């Protein structure tokens, strides 16, 4: 107690001192994570809406008449493999191999395009059968939920395209590291949301 009255005792610090120890993108990555969590809340409201309206068919088509689970299984596989290729590009990023980063990003983008393409094919098939969003509250909720996820994947593909240009122009510098980190989080987040979609919309709908 007596020793603490000494003038030479350093004043207490209530902040993180060794900031330089942290990587430059730390704040951005955490901020982007918060954005993803808010995006999860958007999907939560869409899932809740879908759940509430999941039996409001209004005499229209029912899930087991609408969905071909084989198509959904293929789409799920495509998105899951794209998550792995996205991960492989992050591994290559850590190893500093620019060529591999771009190769795996390209594969991820192509799988993303395939996913959106299969989904649009499914939508077109449904609409051709008269299962449009206007047909029933169930179908409105279905197209809103699945369409919002598809829109996210589409924007993810656009982001990958922009990332490819940035990597080509500037290579693997600190900013591109940070961007890649955010991009991979976005892509994996969409795969997590898709687990909810294929389970609650397709599997439980058909069951």
């Amino acid at each position, binding site marked *: 107690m007596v020793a603490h009255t000494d003038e030479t005792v350093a004043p207490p610090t209530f902040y993180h001192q060794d900031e330089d120890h942290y990587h430059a993108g730390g704040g951005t990555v*955490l901020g982007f994570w918060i954005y993803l969590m808010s995006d999860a809340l958007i999907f*939560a409201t869409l899932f*809740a809406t879908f759940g509430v309206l999941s039996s409001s068919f209004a005499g229209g088509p029912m899930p087991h008449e609408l969905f071909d689970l084989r198509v*959904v299984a293929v789409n799920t596989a495509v998105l899951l493999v794209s998550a*792995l290729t996205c991960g492989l590009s992050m591994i290559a990023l850590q190893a500093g191999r620019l060529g591999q980063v771009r190769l795996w990003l390209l594969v991820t983008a192509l799988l993303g395009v395939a996913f959106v393409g299969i989904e649009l094919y499914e939508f077109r098939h449904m609409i051709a059968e008269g299962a449009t969003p206007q047909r029933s509250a169930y179908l409105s909720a279905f197209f809103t939920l699945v369409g919002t996820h598809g829109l996210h994947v589409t924007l993810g593909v656009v982001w990958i395209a922009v990332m490819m240009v940035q990597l080509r122009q500037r290579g693997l510098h600190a900013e591109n590291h940070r961007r890649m980190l955010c991009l991979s989080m976005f892509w994996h987040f969409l795969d*997590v949301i898709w687990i909810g979609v294929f389970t609650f919309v397709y599997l439980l709908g058909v069951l």
Partner: protein
Amino acid sequence: MAEHAHSGEANHFTLRTYLTGFIVAAVLTAVAFWIVMARPLSGAVAATLVVALAVTQIVVQTYSFLHVNSRAQEGWTLTAYVFTCVLVLIAIGGSLWIMFHLNSNMMPGMMSDPMSQAP
């Protein structure tokens, strides 16, 4: 230098984490689709199992792909994630609970309508 400067201790990804996560996720997905497509179980048991598989897979992918753990960002990603999970459960569970009761209390006619029965 690049590794330390940009990856951070908890953001260090290994091929093994990704491959393990991918294989486990693929198996969980395949089992869920098999349960629904081959119908080895009755409705309620199958539905419970499919939901359990989905929850497991969400946890697996969050850990192995999104790298959420107690060390990343000093635990703030995990804190935000757990908080979001609570909000998601309240939003979805609360909506279903309230709306189901509204349906059964306010519109009894709808519940006897064969078209409004869940398949």
